[in-house]
């Protein structure tokens, strides 16, 4: 369970670092975000929701069934688009509307 940060896409805004409940994300010398110890990630996705630059990817470790899939979050007002890509498969987008309650 962890996240991967695309350092090319990161603009160093620091928002992900600010919210991580485990203080796991740090800044390199250029101010760009990196995850110090990937195995300490809880998988809460707080950092993904903060990143307006699509620089953070969420994945499952191979030990819990990860097979190369990646998940990203794009927020647009009350809508949250969760985009899942898998090797050799078309991407899947699931959109959740904050204004509607869970059906379950």
């Amino acid at each position, binding site marked *: *369970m*962890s996240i991967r940060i695309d350092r090319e896409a990161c603009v160093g805004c620091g928002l992900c670092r*600010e*919210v*991580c*409940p*485990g*203080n796991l994300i740090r800044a390199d010398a250029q101010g760009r975000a990196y995850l*110090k110890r*990937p*195995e*300490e*990630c*809880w*998988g*809460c*996705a*707080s950092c993904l929701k903060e990143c307006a630059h699509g620089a953070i990817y*969420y*994945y*499952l*470790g*191979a*030990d*819990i*069934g*990860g*097979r190369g*899939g990646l*998940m990203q979050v794009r927020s647009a007002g009350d809508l*949250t688009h*969760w985009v*899942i890509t*898998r090797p050799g498969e078309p991407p*899947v987008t*699931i959109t*959740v509307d*904050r*204004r*509607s*309650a*869970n*059906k*379950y």
Partner: protein
Amino acid sequence: MMKQQYLTCDLLIIGGGTAGCYAAITAARRSPELQILIAEKANIKRSGCLAAGVNALNAYITEGQTVQDYLEFVRWDAEGIIRDDLVRTMAERFNEATADLEQMGLVIQKDERGRYVSRGKQNIKINGENIKPILAAQVRRYGNVRVLNHLNMTQLLLDAGRVVGAAGFSVLEEQAYAISARAVLIATGGAAGLYRPNNPGFSRHKMWYPPFNTGAGYAMGIRAGAEMTSFEMRFVAQRCKDTIAPTGTIALGAGAREVNALGEVFEQRYGLSTSGRAYGASNEAREGRGPCYLRTEGISAQQEEDLLKAYLNMAPAQTLKWIESGSLPSRQNVEVEGTEPYIVGGHTASGFWVDTRRRTTVPGLYAAGDVSGGAPKKFVTGALAEGAIAAEAVLDDLGEQSDGSQADFRALAQPVLEEYQSRLAAKSGEAFDVFALEEAMQKVMDEYAGGIRTGYRYNANQLSLARSQIASLAALAETLRAEDMDELVHIYELTDRLTVCQTLIAHLLERRETRWPGFAIHTDYPAPRAEEERYVNSRLVDGQIRVFRRELVKEGAYEHTD
């Protein structure tokens, strides 16, 4: 050199999670002059249990139900070991706290007549993805609440037996803090990471309870001589395999029954209590009928879509897993497993022994939320309720109390701040680092104190081994040195977990019965015993854990008298 900063406030809240944020809101509303300070290890926007979001409000008095019904339900579920006064006083506030959350902006599902839509007898449906940002935004509206994020607290400061403040350090920079306060509320949540987890390798932190809630509050209280209750009532959760995501949404929401590998529904053999359910699944597997599943095969396309979305709002790993594996829940039942044991007073009765108003046994110290004992099944609304109850008690108590002298505070704090400095030192060829000792602790607890490995079973011999091995790890932990602040945090986290383990083992040894077989099986005493229908409590006296019994509190309010 680590910089030192001294701060002063009226009310110091340690831990800005669910209970801590709501305590601050309650106190600030009632007393705009009160100087309130929240010391939070991460950032209150997404810290603690609510980080990923929650799926429902699990504790609500729905139409036709009463506070007494909730009390009876909790008593039944916990096999009698609860504090009636604590459960009643929190349940009385569930609905008020819920209405308040809705005012703050939480989305709650309503029917055409504007009533909340319930999910079973005690739950209501919400969109809880942003519940923590909502609470945090509310906190920021009060000018008299100051929030210090990224501040890890480690030690209560006592003067003549009274708590007068606490010390901690920044997790990011070399800066130590000593904060003097007229009252301190502990709201640091429960303890995860004591036992070897379900996924001990790369995904070691893919656990149910936040791995960053390390039992700091329990440990601070234990060291300060506070009385603790019911640590032996550990919590083992039934969760989705691998992702350790909650299962209630599938079971209650989509109506999925639990089945063994033969497809048999087995719940009637074990009972429907939380412990009974956990025992059922683990025993079915033990007897060769595992693994167990939630039977989702055949759910409708709409139900499936709703499930995928619901999990994104609280446990996104599960949705990714469904999509990535191609094993969608309509096509494949969802495998479940039991977690490693946690100490969490929001689900069971473990935690600080408090009076009805959430005062601990140490003057000046209050406790609310998962860190506080005696009141299982708190969930979100119970944590809010306890935060409010404790805040009101603080306001009443401070009214009666005169300002203490500040002169001696620095003298009290200085040794603690110096210890931080002395630990932050270059390494000199030590054989172990903090991660090696953490792994060792988890292994000992797993094997000798009833972890996953033994199916939550232990006997007195094993517990004695656990006790001596944890003590030797605690001694080793004292020699650890940190290269940076991040490592310093890990060292104090390990120390706190070891402190919690020691109290936990003492409690497990004392309860000579098996009352909650899903949570713990004492193989020397494999059945419940009537004479054990009492609390197991403990207190650290002169460095020794003293364990003792108290009779059940049934009626009225409870005050500390001894």
